[in-house]
């Protein structure tokens, strides 16, 4: 795989489409275990990302990702803003000076992003958070020599669905304790849309 500025922008656009389409679903997930604003916040954030990145002329992938980070940080709010903001910021730093980005660089960016999320959220795997989707996807990129689009989606989807079985011990959902079991984590769901969008970009590019 080889991703250029235009592919990254397409990735963001596709993510935005999915988030807008599933805005109410994400909010409903958050209603079960949180404070019912995840869909609203994410749709506001990604809408703004797409609006802003398409008006600018970018020469590097890193710059696109950095702007994405700053917009998400300032527009999403809640806990998701700084978490996704940190993810894209670390991603941007991780791929600085590399254009276009190949699988190795992309994997490095993803790894840095995950480390950022875990550090910011003081979270690890198995706590019913977005980390439970990011971690297996990053791992897939690390161990696979030739990344397959369908496998990216599949890995992310399966991971998202598994968050249903986990009892939350981080975030607002943690107050629900056992009652959090049976619900998909909203942050895991929006992370899935990000990776599903990515896989569509990889497919198109391949």
């Amino acid at each position, binding site marked *: 795989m080889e991703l250029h500025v235009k592919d990254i922008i397409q990735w963001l656009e596709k993510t935005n489409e999915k988030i807008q389409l599933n805005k109410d679903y994400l909010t409903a997930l958050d209603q079960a275990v949180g404070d019912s604003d995840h869909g609203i916040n994410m749709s506001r954030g990604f809408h703004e990302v797409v609006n802003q990145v398409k008006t600018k002329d970018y020469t590097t992938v890193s710059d696109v990702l950095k702007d994405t980070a700053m917009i998400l940080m300032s527009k999403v*709010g809640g806990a998701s*803003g700084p*978490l996704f903001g940190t993810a894209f910021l670390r991603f941007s730093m991780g791929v600085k000076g590399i254009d276009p980005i190949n699988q190795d660089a992309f994997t490095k960016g993803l790894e840095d992003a995950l480390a950022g999320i875990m550090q910011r959220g003081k979270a690890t795997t198995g706590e019913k958070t977005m980390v439970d989707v990011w971690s297996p996807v990053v791992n897939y990129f690390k161990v696979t020599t030739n990344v397959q689009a369908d496998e990216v989606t599949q890995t992310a989807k399966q991971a998202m669905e598994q968050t249903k079985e986990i009892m939350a011990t981080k975030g*607002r959902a943690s107050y629900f304790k056992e009652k959090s079991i049976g619900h998909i984590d909203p942050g895991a769901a929006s992370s899935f849309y990000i990776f599903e969008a990515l896989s569509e970009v990889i497919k198109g590019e391949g």
Partner: protein
Amino acid sequence: MKKIMNDPNRVVQDMLAGMIAAYPNELKQIPATTAITRSEAPVSGKVGLVSGGGSGHEPAHAGYVGKGMLDAAVVGEVFTSPTPDQIYEAIKAVDGGKGVFLIIKNYTGDVLNFEMAMELAEAEGIQVDKVIVNDDVAVEDSSFTIGRRGIAGTVFVHKIAGAIAEQGATLEEVKTVAEKVVNQTRSMGMALTPCTVPAAGKPSFHLEENEMEIGIGIHGEAGIERKPITTADEIASELTEKILTDMDLNNNEEVAVMVNGLGSTPEMELYIVNKKVNQLLTEKGIHIYKTFVGEYMTALEMTGCSVTLLKLDDELKTLLDATSEAPAFRN
């Protein structure tokens, strides 16, 4: 939903404009942000104090900006944390060269956004430290949750940390006293009716006509239990007892008491609650140094109240009594 507003999506901006109009000499807004600072910020040679959080808790937090309390309050959307860029602007605006101290209520969103702003400021060479307030005994504090929530007790942290900062304390000294207040403050609330976030348009939960919820959070988060409403004395006893079992308070020790209205509770009822709180503490031999009854940390138009106890020593008494010129806390 019936509210006095122009546009549900503009309630925060409109409120801030109205606040500035009310206190034009005391407060100012940082342009293009929802952060309010003292008009004289930054105060040179003083640790800058920044707090904030979602709006809907008025007078918290912007009402506590003023000499003797906060230097800035960063206001988010209703019940939503402000974003790191806004908090960062507030930190920069109040940095008088002695560092900036953040007072954060313990909610995942607030903690993440304030900590991220802290990193941004530190990267710019500003010295920043923080305290996280978690006074709500209704929620279990364990490693399996993010811990207890920050509620009305936060106002005592603003007051006391604000007083010591005003005296010229170092960042470390401010932190030490703020942590002491957090360790010695406990609160619990209850509600009779829910509140409605303007942008949502409908109440965030439902209570039956004869029902109350004990231990509810200031955003309407679930508490300990829902049950038929009882007398003010029983409500006051339940809140106070739960606080006392979690506090290390002995005979002859002194406390400050806060009976806080959540938005729609008549002051009459708050005083009725205070009567019982006072009686209970007195019976136990606990001295009440000072009592605050009124609206300090609300939850929009929720009906209900919270009780807060702060265990005092000589240092905290002096700081609690120090002058404050904040619009919502004149001393």
